[in-house]
């Protein structure tokens, strides 16, 4: 999953186009409930079942995409 794919997921979940690869999920209106949508979208696309902790530690599209890559590699 590319960083741009992850930006797309963030944009869809946060319902805003003002998301870049370095936008912080929680500073962009995200919370734990919206977080489940990101985790579900990643699980459906990549089969990787991240946790909310992963999103807290990697809250940007770039960081989260890297985390997915590190799991699938």
């Amino acid at each position: 999953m590319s960083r741009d794919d992850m930006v797309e997921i963030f944009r869809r979940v946060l319902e805003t186009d003002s998301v870049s690869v370095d936008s912080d999920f929680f500073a962009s209106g995200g919370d734990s409930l919206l977080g489940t949508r990101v985790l579900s979208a990643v699980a459906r696309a990549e089969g990787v079942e991240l946790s909310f902790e992963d999103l807290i530690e990697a809250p940007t599209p770039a960081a989260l995409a890297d985390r997915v890559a590190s799991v699938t590699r």
Partner: protein
Amino acid sequence: MADIVSALLEVARSCPENRAVEYGGHGISYAELVRKVRATARELGPAPGPVGVLTDRSPATVVALLGVLAAGGTYCPVDPAFPAARQRALLEAAGCAKVLVARPGTPVPEGWEPVELPGLLSLPDEEHPGPPAPEAADAQAPAYTLFTSGSTGRPKPVLTPRGAIAASVASLRELFALTPADRVLQFASLNWDTCLEEILPALTTGATLVFHDEAYTGSIPRLLRAVDAAGVTLLDLPTAFWHELVRHLAQSEEQLPDSVRTVVIGGEAAGPARLAEWRALATDRVRLINTYGCTETTLITHAVDLHGPGAPGPGAWWGEHGVPIGKPLPHVTEAIGPDGELSIAGPALATGYRNLPEVTAERFVLREGPHGPVRWFRTGDRVSRRPDGHLVHEGRLDAEIKVRGIRVDPGEIETHLSAHPEVGVAAVVGTRTADRTTVTAYVVPRRADADAAALVREVLRDLRATVPGHLVPHRVTVVPELVHTAGGKIDRLGTHRLHTPAAAAPARTEHHNGPTEQDNR
């Protein structure tokens, strides 16, 4: 009405070897649970007063809860993930002299000494002498203290008597049709009252309460796997989380595990779109129970089967007049005022707000009945009655909103925002967008030349350090001024419309089922 502790002891006498609690695949029998509860009660001593418990997602919290009750004390759960200042405010407001720590090593707020319970979960198996006779417990004595949001910024402690919890739990055992074969997932946050709907009906039936680490990861696929692996039969979910579960099931190939026979939801309005999706999934064999209640009226007061074998006929469709919150449970008396406000009477009413006689008198009122004065709780919720008798929630009489199922007075967030040295005034609104509430704060800086982006970052950082996550707005917008009403009061909705012209309609305030929360962010 049997006291909760008596009911537990009775179950432990009749089926001592049943598994009471399960965690990480390990089981604790009812006999063992009662031994641990007695040991905890003995450690606390008789009538210990309000006891703060720093909770943990483990059976130790259940032992602490029941141990405090067995000793005749008042249970007061505190989330150790809350900022320290908030933990202190809660312990002070509840009047806790003692603090129990569910997970060894959890730091205790300054000024309190933790009650040490070494080896809480590895006590020797020999019989211990019993706790003070709980059978003699006074139904009016306080059982627990939980908090609701108050505009002053200080949490409002609700005192719930033992008789209220006994009455409510008896109705819930019946509503859930629990049997000793049931396996109830512990999912709700341990720091609000929804978890008591999971814990107490199960443990006074002889059923098993299941803790499972994979259920708390925030990942729905992992939750579904945990439910399947543990053979969970009853799930009690905040409605906002159920919305996300339905979305996931509708968009993926996954299914609700076969073991699940009942899903209980509550905390805010169930969305008709998600309910339609749920009906379209293979869920006909699963009871979907919608519930309503306030912390002040103890757990659940109203319920209705929305779908599944308990729903009133396959023709019942709830989309037309709004999804109902149902009819009162057997222990509940309801009344609807001329303005549509729902009032509740009966044995499940709280005693009031601790040390707040004026606020208590405002919400707990005496009304003359045919057999003398009756005490009622004014819920602040507006309801209507459908032709079939089920109530529908229509909104709030005040500005209260629900954030992830937790009641929030916007005034409380405004108070915290205004405490920031760079903030002049603030207005907070909740807006409802597809199944959820988004909280937006408008702040006016003290200095006209303030750097807006920097101020937003600073305000959010400070809030996260001092208050729980449900009091942190999703969005903070710096504006030059707020809108005021003709009477000079801050006009929250007017401010919202002026500064977010394309804004979605303000939150149709939702009904609540006692606070629940999923996280501390």
